[in-house]
């Protein structure tokens, strides 16, 4: 187990990168503490798998240094790094039994037989594979195979980290929950550093203590699920996380108010100091918009265009001036399509973005 440090790591698959777009992974500095559960979240092609392969040594970064516990490992190959990796599709050695599969990483490293048996049995118990140890691995279901793949990572006591590359893609939804819980439980029991790549925000937010959001080869934000939700550092993070994502409304700052679709929205004094005037993006989560009580003075008015009843809440879609806006409201509030709805945008939850990046 190790503290993982990335110093100015960048990678390009092109031989002569010069523009930022040439990089699959733009220069980045990160530190991952020993024993943490991290998720790399981003859409396809965001560079998260490249980053993962750099950690495991399958890809050598174009520049920068990678340190495990302060020791540089950039030039070491996968075998020497003591990293375990679980791939998107289950990889099993189908000529071996389940026991053989789990024992394979230890046998390759010349671990004594007694120790192998003990470790394999322990890991099999954690992964519910104890009854399958004597079976051929090839005949098992996809999720059992994926548990074996995970088991090969867990069986070694000396791994620096276990990397997961979208490991639940081939698993059906009901089992996904079970396996994710299993992973969480393994993390709590074994305290091993887990790094989990996914494009599914639910998976990332439920699994990890820290989520790293990536897009276009760039790390946009790193933080706890709550931080990402409440303080998105970038419009992409605001939009990508949450369902639906953050409302992003173009606005103009003028005389201590933000004009959104022609309607004035009051901001905190702090926000105004930073950017007294100019065009910005105002972001607010659908969850934080409040409907004004009848008769109460409202800030802005929204014309309702659609209502989606979603059980625990309803999602009201409407227009604020020329911009679309989504509001999450309690199901008992009666709203009709076409109605003009008075709403409050609480200034504590308003985020302002310039050039995509958070400014307040």
């Amino acid at each position, binding site marked *: 187990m190790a503290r993982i440090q990335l110093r100015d790591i960048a990678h390009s698959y092109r031989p002569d990168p010069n523009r930022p777009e040439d990089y699959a992974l733009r220069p980045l500095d990160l530190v991952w503490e020993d024993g943490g559960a991290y998720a790399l979240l981003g859409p396809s092609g965001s560079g998260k798998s490249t980053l993962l392969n750099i950690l*495991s*040594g*399958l890809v050598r970064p174009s520049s920068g240094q990678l340190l495990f516990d302060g020791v540089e490992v950039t030039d070491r*190959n*996968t*075998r020497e790094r003591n*990293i*375990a*990796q679980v*791939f*998107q*599709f289950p*990889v099993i*050695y*189908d*000529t*071996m039994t389940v026991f053989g599969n789990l024992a*394979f*990483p230890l046998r*390759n*490293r010349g671990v004594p037989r007694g120790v192998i048996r003990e470790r394999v049995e322990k890991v099999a118990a954690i992964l519910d594979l104890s009854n399958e140890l004597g079976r*051929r*691995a*090839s*005949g098992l279901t996809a999720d059992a195979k994926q548990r074996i*793949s995970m088991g*090969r*990572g867990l069986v070694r006591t000396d791994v620096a980290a276990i990397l997961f590359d979208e490991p639940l893609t081939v698993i059906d939804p009901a089992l996904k929950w079970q396996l994710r819980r299993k992973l969480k439980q393994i993390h709590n029991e074994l305290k091993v550093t887990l790094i989990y790549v996914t494009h599914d925000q639910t998976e990332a937010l439920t699994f990890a203590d820290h989520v790293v959001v990536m897009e276009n080869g760039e790390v946009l934000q790193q933080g706890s699920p709550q931080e990402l939700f409440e303080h998105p550092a970038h419009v992409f993070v605001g939009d990508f996380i949450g369902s639906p994502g953050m409302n992003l409304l173009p606005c103009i700052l003028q005389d201590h108010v933000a004009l959104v679709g022609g309607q004035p929205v009051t901001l905190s004094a702090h926000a105004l100091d930073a950017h007294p005037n100019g065009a910005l993006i105002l972001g607010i989560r659908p969850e934080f918009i409040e409907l004004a009580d009848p008769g109460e003075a409202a800030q802005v008015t929204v014309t309702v265009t659609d209502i989606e009843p979603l059980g625990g809440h309803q999602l009201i879609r409407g227009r604020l001036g020329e911009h679309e806006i989504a509001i999450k409201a309690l199901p008992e509030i009666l709203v009709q399509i076409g109605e003009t709805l008075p709403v409050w945008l609480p200034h504590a939850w308003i985020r302002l973005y310039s050039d995509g990046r958070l400014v307040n």
Partner: protein
Amino acid sequence: MKPIKQSAWLLVLPVMVVLSFSAIIPLMTVVNYSVQDILGPSRHVFVGSEWFSDTLQDPELQKALLRQLVFSSCVLLIEIPLGLSLALVMPTRGAASSAALVLLGLPLLIPWNVVGTIWQIFGRADVGLGGYFMNSILHINYNYALNPRDAWCTLLLLDVWHWTPLVVLLCYAGLRSIPDAFYQAAAVDGASSWAVFRHVQLPKLRGVLTIAILLRFMDSFVIYTEPFVLTGGGPGDSTTFLSEFLTKLAIGQFDVGPAAAFSLIYFLIILLFSWLFYTVLSAQGRAEGPV
């Protein structure tokens, strides 16, 4: 129960007709010859299994069969491991891989009799590059027309040169179809290159290796043109294999009866070996899981 439509037979008819002319009728003719003594265009006597017992006891044929078995074993023992090794070390991307594929493909495009002629000239001590090199530069007395050992070596070398590329191409295709994740997982698991070969590559190649072994066995077991062109079965009868023997029997001596009986035995031997290879290899596969 649905009424059975007899008209369905009509649909099978075209296949039956084609099969009759291409396989069943010729085979039945052979069966017919094998149990009769043809004395003249309209005189023939039924002899039962006499030809079969005669042929099986023929010492010449037994020697030819033994030679054939040794030759096919040598071919398999050399070409399969060699082809597999070459496929493993072949470049996998870029111009080098295309060049290697084209170079390997070339021998496969050359017809059997031309291959025989090429090697016949190549091995000659006076005008052939190979023969000249052996005799005049290495000073090894090499002459495939006089020395049975030299004839065998030349013939084996010829077959290896002609057909190993087939094994290479099959294995190469098999290797390319293994997903990268298997190699990456093996690297993560700390597998040595031997362990990767034993536990990843070899199991995934079982299918193509089965095909390669079957093809090379059947082909080498019926080899005819190359020894016919290169040595004509000699020196003596040292390179007279079963096909050559059979042809002499049927066409040279016009012993149609024994030749037909032996053809059937020959056919059964090939069928038996192919079935054995296939069953053993796929049983191994079942024990180890799907390919």
